[in-house]
């Protein structure tokens, strides 16, 4: 590469004519881009053609991936950082249900799932899933129901396990009935059982590995398409192809097609862009659609747009005055101009969020209903509400937020703050800002030590947690942390929703109804609009799982290839 670089450098001779030509071209391009910038529209995704149109799969090559944050460790049940995205590449899930396309089930370690009643789940373990060759002392045997049992037992008993909330609250019992049958029983019918079973942090590692947590922390091999290879804390991770992976591609050849995956930690955006354009990494997530549009080169890249499952929210502490008064909460809601956030922060490439965010598709309330009934910007009404609540001269509130942080749902927190302050001022509410470092903000937020907050939120791939924000048990489910809203009617309605296990349509309807109920109580947690991610991929990456829009479930797929 270096030789080519110097060769190109010396070949560049700049004459007077070429200089003038370049200057004229530059001026023309600047004028044209200026004109276009005034009329730009969010680009549509240009997904790659379906597998059949991309030619026969090719074997070999290494996928080059990146992460902005470091890997803390490789324990599939405990890790909270970048590695969680790679557990589905190494281990197996029993079955994963896409929340974006709830009809899509990916059967992995379980080949079938029976549900004889609302609380019983019988997983029939697939024969022939063998542990990848390894030097960890784990025998290359077939995984069985005992492995599923050992993993869920660990998840249940390990206080740091990320899926422990499900196992503690809902998992009443579980057992390996025989080598091929694993049975789970929940204490109550629970709508998101399969979702929790299919999480990346609920994957099934060989039970011998669980007996050695120190080894599990830095290495791993299971029945997934890859094994963990080199892991250097702070630098990156490599995964190597599992030659005995059980699944085959459409051409009947064993998967995965690529020899491995290298993951680098690249925190800086400019560095990521440089690495992408020089093919050191195979994809790049643009800051927003405008950057994606500027970089887009159809001869080299394709664009995959995916909804972002996190969002910013305005949170009011309903346990404290003045937010204990529903009229004040409604005044805040009426002062927020959601369209302005869409246009300024997200450059038009975003949608309004109701209680359940738009990324969750059918589970979210229709946009038209939200805009016409619940997300109405009406500062006059806000002032009237404040006056009725005893604040005829308006109100002064304190609002904390994590400063110098990327925002959930796109943009940057610093872009949200001035708009929000201006919005609230239009409704008669003056904001006293409390910018905090992330750790301090999180600590105070969790302890409810604040009046109001502009808040980051995690990725919510189901409607459960967004609804839990409005219950007395709160999003952590413990009734202590975070929760700021207590209403028995909402609690009962959300409980009913959680018990719907038989029909997706019924679940959708019930989630809509409970959102309407929450809005009727003037909620203290108001989600702001969120955007889509705009990821450019080199077009030699074929059959990209990202094109399917399956969310986390796509991480289990291993049938992409590199046409290098």
């Amino acid at each position: 590469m270096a030789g080519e670089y110097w060769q190109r450098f010396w070949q560049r001779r700049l004459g007077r004519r070429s200089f003038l030509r370049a200057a004229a071209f530059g001026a023309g391009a600047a004028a044209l881009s200026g004109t276009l910038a005034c009329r730009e529209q969010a680009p549509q995704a240009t997904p790659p053609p379906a597998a059949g149109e991309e030619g026969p799969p090719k074997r070999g090559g290494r996928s080059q991936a990146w992460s902005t944050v470091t890997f803390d460790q490789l324990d599939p049940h405990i890790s909270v950082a970048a590695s969680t995205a790679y557990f589905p590449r190494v281990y197996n899930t029993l079955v994963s249900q896409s929340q974006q396309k709830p009809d899509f089930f990916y059967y992995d370690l379980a080949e079938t799932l029976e549900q004889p009643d609302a609380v019983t789940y019988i997983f029939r373990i697939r024969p022939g899933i063998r542990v990848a060759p390894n030097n960890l002392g784990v025998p290359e045997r077939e995984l069985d129901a005992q492995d599923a049992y050992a993993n869920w037992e660990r998840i249940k008993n390990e206080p740091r396990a990320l899926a422990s909330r499900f196992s503690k609250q809902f998992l009443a019992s579980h057992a390996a009935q025989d080598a091929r049958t694993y049975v789970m029983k929940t204490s109550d019918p629970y709508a998101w059982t399969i979702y929790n079973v299919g999480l990346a942090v609920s994957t099934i590692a060989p039970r011998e590995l669980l007996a050695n947590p120190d080894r599990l922390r830095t290495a791993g091999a299971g029945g997934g398409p890859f094994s963990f290879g080199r892991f250097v804390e702070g630098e990156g991770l490599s995964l190597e192809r599992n030659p005995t992976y059980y699944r085959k591609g459409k051409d009947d050849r064993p998967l995965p097609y690529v020899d491995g995956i290298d993951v680098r930690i690249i925190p800086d955006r400019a560095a990521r862009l440089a690495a992408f354009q020089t093919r050191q990494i195979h994809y790049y997530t643009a800051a927003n659609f405008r950057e994606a549009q500027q970089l887009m080169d159809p001869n080299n890249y394709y664009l995959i747009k995916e909804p972002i499952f996190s969002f910013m929210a305005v949170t009011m502490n309903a346990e404290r005055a003045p937010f204990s008064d529903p009229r004040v909460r409604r005044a805040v809601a009426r002062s927020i101009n959601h369209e302005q956030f869409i246009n300024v922060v997200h450059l038009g490439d975003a949608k309004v969020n109701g209680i359940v965010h738009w990324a969750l598709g059918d589970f979210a309330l229709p946009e038209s209903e939200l805009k016409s009934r619940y997300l109405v910007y009406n500062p006059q009404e806000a002032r009237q509400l404040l006056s009725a609540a005893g604040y005829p001269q308006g109100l002064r509130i304190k609002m904390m937020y994590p400063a110098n942080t990327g925002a959930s749902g796109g943009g940057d927190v610093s872009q949200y703050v001035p708009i929000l302050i201006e919005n609230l001022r239009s409704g008669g509410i003056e904001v006293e800002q409390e910018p905090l470092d992330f750790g301090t903000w999180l600590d105070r937020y969790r302890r409810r030590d604040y009046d109001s907050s502009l808040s980051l939120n995690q990725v919510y791939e189901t409607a459960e947690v967004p609804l839990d924000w409005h219950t007395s048990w709160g999003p952590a489910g413990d009734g202590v942390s975070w929760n700021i809203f207590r209403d028995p009617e909402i609690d009962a309605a959300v409980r009913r929703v959680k018990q719907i296990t038989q029909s997706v349509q019924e679940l959708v309807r019930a989630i809509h109804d409970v959102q309407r109920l929450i809005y009727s109580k003037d909620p203290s947690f108001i989600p702001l609009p969120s955007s889509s991610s705009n990821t450019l991929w080199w077009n030699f990456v074929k059959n990209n799982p990202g094109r399917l829009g399956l969310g986390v479930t796509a991480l289990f797929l291993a049938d992409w290839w590199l046409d290098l």
Partner: protein
Amino acid sequence: MQAFIVRRLLAGVVILFFLSIAVFLVLRVAPGDPALLRLGPQATAEQVAAERERLGLNDPLIVQYSRWMKGVLTGDLGISNFSGESIARSIRNRLPNTLELLVMTLVLTTAIGITAGVISAVWRDTPLDYAVRVLAVLGLSVPALWLATLVLLVPLQVWGYAPPIGRVVHFFDDPWANLRQFLPAAVVLALGPAAAIMRLTRSSLLEVLRQDYIRTARAKGLGERLVIARHALRNAMIPPLTVLALQFSALLGGSVIIEQIFTLPGIGQYFFQAIFVKDFPVVQTLTLYTGVVVVLTILALDVAYAWLDPRIRYR
């Protein structure tokens, strides 16, 4: 001289003791819960309490401090709260990257700064002097963050070139790739200090060149090159040496921004990540490590002064 060194080392131990107490207390007084940051926002109160217990954060402060100090004094730097990885091993993994960056930066700083300073002083008030001084002002005023981004993006836009990013190539595996990776970062780090050294070298050399012994050297017929190289430059080196030494100690603690941008996993990046997640053992240990480096560097500097200028004597 030996007594001086021993005295300074003892004083250094006292300084480090107070530094250890200060960093230990500041971390615990500052708001923010490391257990919560470790577990993430979805953690329940019960999980956070269990994690605090596991990390020993519920123990009395004196117990926590004693545990840490005992570890440091016995060579056990402890375990990162965030990754569970041995801190000593993480430092060992990252130190070579930081050291390589440091060596390159110091070589560039010295070469550019002193050469430009001498040129500027010898050809004082000529166009060459003005040009060098303008460049020095630029070097001092351009922020490293912005310059680093330019160093990445301009070659990318013009030649489609970028250095290897995100994976460290070791010098002995592939020297050329290693230089392509570290050199741009070293250049960015070196420009500011090189400009400072250039200005110090220039003013210091001009002052020395006005001294009587320089006139004597010229009067006895020594060539100008010899006068400058042998008689003037050595005595003019004390102020630039101070800047170099301070840069050395700062760089040995890692360069947070440059390591982040050029994705060089060094001590600075480790420090930055640890502060962000309130990884107490890592922040404490790295602060103490930086303190040791500064104390030893300043001691070495004082010794070097005496070597450079025979008039300086320590008692």
